[in-house]
């Protein structure tokens, strides 16, 4: 089953490369996405057991990330169809020469495949290969609109992430070096690393975790390693930004969590937790600084991704009940951020500018999108009854209950500051009347651009008032492996 899930997207990618006519290709895209989502759902229901020594397998954490990615991809694929159609229409599209669509679709599907591989791989080496692959496959996606800016973004993305991930490889090597020679060091499967605890020598493990944290942390976008993130997210087509922010970051976070898992198994929980907490809270602060006075709404969303990834890492670092809260927060952040990016895409297509001061009066021009934009703002800032509130509350609760006053203050203060920064931007955009030089009048919003984000927001809304017992236990089990649990 797992293998099938991994292979399916790649097959789809090949199929997407072949056909001439666009319709068929888009059909393939959606179909594969749907199949993949269905498969993931089945995995949730009948958990395929992980065979001993297997390199592929879905434990709770992996399955969670996979679920997020797959669901997002389904939503995005529907959005993509209309997006590409609009790209063709003469009046509507912004950019003259886009990348050939077949490459785009192919890379999209391959991207899904590599992400699946990341979530499913039990072997750290394999994990690394897959992680690097996600970077390389997603590079053409960012360069979809062939503009200078997007090219620059792509270059930074590829270079920074590759270097970062190279450090992760270094970490992998150190980890392997830590395993005594007689015990076949290169076999870096999780069950072996976690199962028989205390096998890796502590010094090697420490160094390798630091390398992992910095390496994969670069891809997670933890400050100050986040520098590629705002560029890539703001220059990529919005649906790609949605995937990057909603799915890819979680995959990278999974990488960090794996390393953390090993540390926990070796009784180094305190060590890794310290590092994660510092990186996490740092990201929240940095994101707050850059969101206040931000003039580009897509960059604003990107920085908020930095913030939320920081929150997730902080939660994992805090341990205890916060870990399950952090995982829940990953879910909430992904769906909300994806919805926001989709809305941002529609806004960008309509108003032709990423600058906040060029966008006014959305409530009149794009009522539905404006609604999504506002609701998404409330959801992402952790306003009840949206899900982010409860997960952020869980993390705050742990931070305060364990008497980490400084972190609590920075955390709550950072959140408040971010609200201040985003509120100004969002209210100015939705409210008001379009100024001179801006088009007035209501614009038609295709259903496929509105329904997916609405569905995603619906999900986080439900998670805000009702976390099914099954899901919560699932998260608890995932958290237990990460040194969490009540």
């Amino acid at each position, binding site marked *: 089953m797992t293998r099938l899930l991994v292979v399916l997207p790649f097959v789809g990618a090949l199929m997407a490369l072949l056909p001439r006519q666009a319709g068929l290709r888009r059909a393939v895209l959606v179909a594969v996405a749907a199949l993949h989502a269905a498969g993931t759902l089945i995995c949730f229901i009948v958990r395929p057991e992980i065979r001993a020594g297997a390199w592929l397998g879905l434990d709770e954490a992996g399955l969670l990330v996979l679920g997020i990615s797959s669901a997002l991809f389904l939503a995005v694929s529907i959005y993509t169809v209309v997006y590409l159609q609009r790209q063709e229409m003469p009046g509507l599209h912004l950019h003259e020469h886009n990348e050939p669509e077949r490459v785009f679709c192919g890379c999209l599907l391959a991207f899904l495949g590599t992400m699946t591989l990341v979530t499913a791989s039990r072997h750290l080496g394999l994990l690394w290969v897959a992680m690097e692959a996600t970077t390389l496959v997603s590079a053409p996606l960012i360069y979809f609109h*062939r503009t200078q800016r997007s090219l620059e973004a792509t*270059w930074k993305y590829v270079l920074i992430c590759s270097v970062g991930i190279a450090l992760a490889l270094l970490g992998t*090597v150190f980890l392997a*070096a830590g395993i005594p020679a007689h015990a076949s060091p290169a076999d870096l499967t999780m069950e072996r690393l976690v199962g028989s605890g205390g096998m890796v020598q502590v010094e090697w493990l420490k160094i390798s975790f630091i390398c992992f944290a910095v390496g994969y942390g670069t891809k997670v976008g933890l400050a100050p390693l986040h520098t590629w993130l705002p*560029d890539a997210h*703001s220059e990529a087509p919005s649906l790609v930004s949605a995937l990057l922010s909603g799915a890819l970051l979680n995959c990278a976070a999974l990488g960090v969590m794996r390393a953390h898992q090993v540390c926990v198994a070796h009784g180094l929980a305190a060590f890794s937790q310290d590092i994660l907490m510092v990186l996490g809270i740092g990201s929240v602060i940095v994101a707050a600084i850059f969101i206040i006075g931000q003039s580009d709404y897509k960059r604003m969303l990107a920085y908020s991704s930095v913030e939320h990834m920081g929150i997730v890492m902080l939660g994992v670092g805090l341990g205890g009940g916060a870990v399950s809260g952090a995982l829940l927060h990953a879910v909430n952040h992904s769906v909300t951020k994806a919805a926001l990016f989709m809305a941002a895409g529609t806004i960008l297509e309509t108003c032709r500018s990423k600058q906040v001061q060029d966008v006014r009066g959305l409530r009149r021009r794009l009522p539905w999108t404006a609604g999504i934009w506002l609701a998404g703002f409330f959801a992402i800032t952790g306003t009840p009854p949206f899900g982010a509130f409860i997960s952020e509350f869980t993390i705050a609760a742990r931070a305060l209950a364990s008497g980490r006053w400084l972190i609590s203050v920075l955390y709550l203060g950072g959140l408040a500051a971010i609200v201040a920064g985003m509120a100004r931007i969002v209210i100015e955009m939705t409210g008001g009347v379009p100024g001179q030089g801006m088009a007035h009048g209501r614009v038609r919003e295709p259903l496929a651009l509105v329904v997916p984000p609405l569905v995603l927001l619906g999900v986080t809304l439900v998670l805000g008032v009702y976390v099914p017992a099954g899901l919560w236990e699932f998260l608890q089990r995932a958290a237990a492996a990460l040194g969490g649990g009540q």
Partner: protein
Amino acid sequence: MQVIDAIMVGMVLTCLLLLGSSRLGAYIRIVAVQGIVAAVVPLVAHGHGIGLQAAVVSAVTLVMKGIVFPRLLFRALYAAGVRREIEVYVSFPVSVLAGVLMLAGSCWLCGRLPLGAEVSGLAVPVAMFTVLTGLFLIVSRVLALTQVVGYLTLENGIYLLSVVLVPQQLFVIEMGILLDAFAAVFVMGIAIFHISREFDHIDTQAMDELADWRASKETE
């Protein structure tokens, strides 16, 4: 082990050359040489004789790093049509000096690591040194192409580390890593091509459109 030590010395020399050299073509060639040198290591590391797997690995690595990557880079170079001196943030003498310091630093670092007896005393520090050199090159050189070279150096260093630290490798992983490195160089090459077309140079200094401090100034 005399052989491996000699190889290590060679590595060090290549690194210092990279830090010191100022012409693009030479640059690429040096890194190719370094790749070849690194590729030889599995054959001579760990006293026990040459296993088939090690042979294959080193062969593929040799082909890749010795032939394919330089080809790709040169293609990008010609496409970009630049035959210029390398531009640097840190001048060459200083870089070489820094290189020496980094070597010392990596020796000190490896002194603190619990190294097994079977590894040659020089191997690990040199590998570390190569890694650091790669990072240094990426940070301190201006042209996009030179950054790719730096990335390759980093790759070489890690490869070396993995060879000397981890006795028996896993074939698949090695191949995967190589594949990724290949893809990375490939993608970067394409990117460089596009960059040279869009910006009609491959100077990354000019690529600071996307920044926040200027954006915020505009709003002022």
